[in-house]
């Protein structure tokens, strides 16, 4: 019984020693690869949010600045992964995703604000301008009609 216990204890020690490097290093190739792929996907997702905001007419300078910073971290993660620095790759990938935290909310706020501003702009400029044009035309026509009537009456009176 005791020898069996010793055998299991020995096996546990061997397994612990074998696993020690991965426990110390943290990220292995697989984990780092997943982290980098996740960061790449997140950057693309956020880029699409920025595109939507831009299409709505928002000023996306601030969003692009954040994306640039995240992109720089992503490049470093890819480089680290390429040279086998998996810890570095995982760290840079995590920093990249961290930099993009709250990006969706920020871009949606900008997009909604731009959409509202656009609507307001449309109302003031287009509808207001069109209504003004119609008012000027109708007003001009009424003045012309009034003057014509007055002129006609005066001319008629003079003729009589």
């Amino acid at each position, binding site marked *: 019984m005791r020898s069996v216990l010793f055998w299991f204890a020995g096996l546990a020690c061997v397994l612990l020693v074998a696993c020690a490097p991965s426990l110390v290093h943290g990220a292995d190739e697989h984990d780092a690869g997943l982290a980098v792929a996740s960061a790449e996907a997140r950057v693309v997702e956020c*880029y699409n949010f920025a595109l939507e905001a831009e299409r709505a007419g928002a000023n996306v300078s601030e969003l692009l600045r954040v*994306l*640039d910073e995240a*992109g*720089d971290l992503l*490049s470093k993660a890819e*480089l680290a992964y390429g040279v086998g620095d998996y810890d570095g790759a995982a760290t840079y990938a995590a920093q990249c995703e961290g930099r993009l935290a709250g990006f969706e909310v920020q871009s949606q706020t900008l997009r909604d604000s731009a959409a509202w501003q656009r609507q307001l702009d449309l109302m003031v400029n287009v509808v207001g*301008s*069109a209504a003004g044009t119609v008012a000027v035309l109708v007003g001009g026509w009424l003045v012309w009609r009034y003057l014509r009537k007055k002129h006609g009456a005066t001319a008629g009176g003079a003729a009589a």
Partner: protein
Amino acid sequence: MLVASPVLSRLLVYPRTEFFTELWLLGPGHMAEDYPYNVTRGQNYTVFLGVGDRLGYCGYYRVEVKFRNQSQPVPESFGPLGNRSSSGLPSLYSIVAFVGDEMVWETPLTFSFDYSYNVGLGQVEFNSLTLNGVVLDLSGYVSGWNATRSEFYGNLFFETWIYNGTTESFQYHERFVGLRFNMTLS
């Protein structure tokens, strides 16, 4: 006309017909001059890389940093856009740039080379390129003596790739800029 001008300004807009991307490289004085040519080992050099977006939407660009000697493939410079291909050499580093429509993006690039001269083979053997503090491996890259031009040729170039939302991948954007060097032995 005065009252109608806001409406007219929306109706009478001349449509944009040309959509393209600009790519440039400026020298250390932020002008198109004084580009480094005679390069010394370990010496820092600075140039400015810029991208201008005229695509009608903000672009997600990757500028691939590549290095070649005289015998290695260069990206195609001629022929109509749509048929030009990239160099096929591996990228040393990707510079990511997000550029809004009608906006420009520019960054300084400070670089230095680490290389040695192999007397027996009469060639320059590269070790690394340090670009903005990032060390890039150049082991395996060599440059032989070009007697015609009296130089050890080196060419650092930058290819633009752009993210295509339809294919969900990057595609070569058919633009590149580069710097030609003489790797001096001093």
